């Protein structure tokens, strides 16, 4: 760009930056600033071509823009909204990420301790007892995955996701209690009995949730 244009360019840029100073940056503001700058530079160049010096050309262009405060207010409002939305989204996403990590670690911890105790030659009840970590981990993973927003699906409502987590937890717990009562009592029928009680509750809850759910699939644009 020729050197004689740079004064106007600089002044226009500074003028527009100053106009929107303190307004939260977002794509729309960025675009508007570029649009205004391009047009204002062109206008100042036209004034200059009519014989004004650069300083005067810039001033005339700035004056003839008119009162831009309405536009600034618009952008300020928009900036606040997008900022709030972004904070909200990242908070939910962070909780979900933390939940998935914690859940996976719990499941792994449970699995490893079961294996460890088994090879330590501990009795069957103590060995399977640490499986409770797998139950807790499974419930947390279910909740965290469902509250996560993906490219194709919106995040599930937190209360609903908590119920899904509970249902999953109860089902895992039913298997857990069945195994543990089998080893504790040595009787298979008691194990099946406890499996039945908890799995009925879990399956009931899960079916209710599955059949009442609203679609979370995002519409194709």
């Amino acid at each position, binding site marked *: *760009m020729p050197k004689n244009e740079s004064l106007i360019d600089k002044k226009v840029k500074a003028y527009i930056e100053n106009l929107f100073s303190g307004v939260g940056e977002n794509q729309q503001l960025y675009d508007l600033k570029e649009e205004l700058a*391009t*047009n204002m*530079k062109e206008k100042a160049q036209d004034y200059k071509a009519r014989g004004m010096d650069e300083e005067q050309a810039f001033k005339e262009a700035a004056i*003839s823009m008119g*009162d831009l405060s309405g536009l600034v207010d618009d952008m300020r409002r928009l900036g606040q909204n997008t900022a709030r939305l972004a904070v909200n989204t990242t908070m939910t996403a962070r909780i979900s990420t933390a939940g998935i990590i914690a859940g996976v670690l719990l499941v792994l911890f449970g699995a490893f301790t079961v294996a460890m105790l088994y090879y330590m030659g501990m009795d069957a009840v103590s060995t399977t007892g640490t499986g409770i970590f797998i139950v807790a981990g499974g419930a947390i993973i279910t909740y965290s995955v469902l509250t996560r927003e993906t490219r194709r699906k919106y995040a599930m409502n937190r209360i609903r996701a908590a119920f899904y987590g509970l249902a999953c937890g109860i089902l895992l717990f039913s298997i857990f209690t069945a195994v543990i009562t089998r080893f504790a009592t040595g009787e298979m029928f008691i194990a099946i009995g406890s499996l039945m009680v908890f799995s009925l509750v879990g399956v009931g809850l899960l079916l209710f949730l599955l059949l009442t759910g609203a679609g979370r699939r995002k519409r194709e644009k």
Partner: protein
Amino acid sequence: MDTTISNDLIRGHTTTIILNVLSQGDNYGYGIYKRIIELSGNQYELKEATLYTAFRRLEGEGLIVSYWGDETQGGRRKYYRITDSGKELYEQSKRDWDFAKSVLDKLIKGGFDHAKE
């Protein structure tokens, strides 16, 4: 430039004026500004502040759409194009204007001679 038309009179027609310019071809902010001055025979200047506010509103209402030009010198221009619903509104506004003009003419200039007819 002296504004020779009162702002009150023209304010309600900003949308129609912009749609008129865009119905003659895609254009960008400063280009539209210049075209309006030209159309008025240097009798009227629509402030750019008003223009940009109107662009945002019209785009929100789906009457116009925007796209970036591919200029490399001096920054990209943002062009506007009228949509089908924009064209419809423009045609409707023209009819409304013709009607309003005829009635206003009677109201402002009409006298007893007119009433007798």
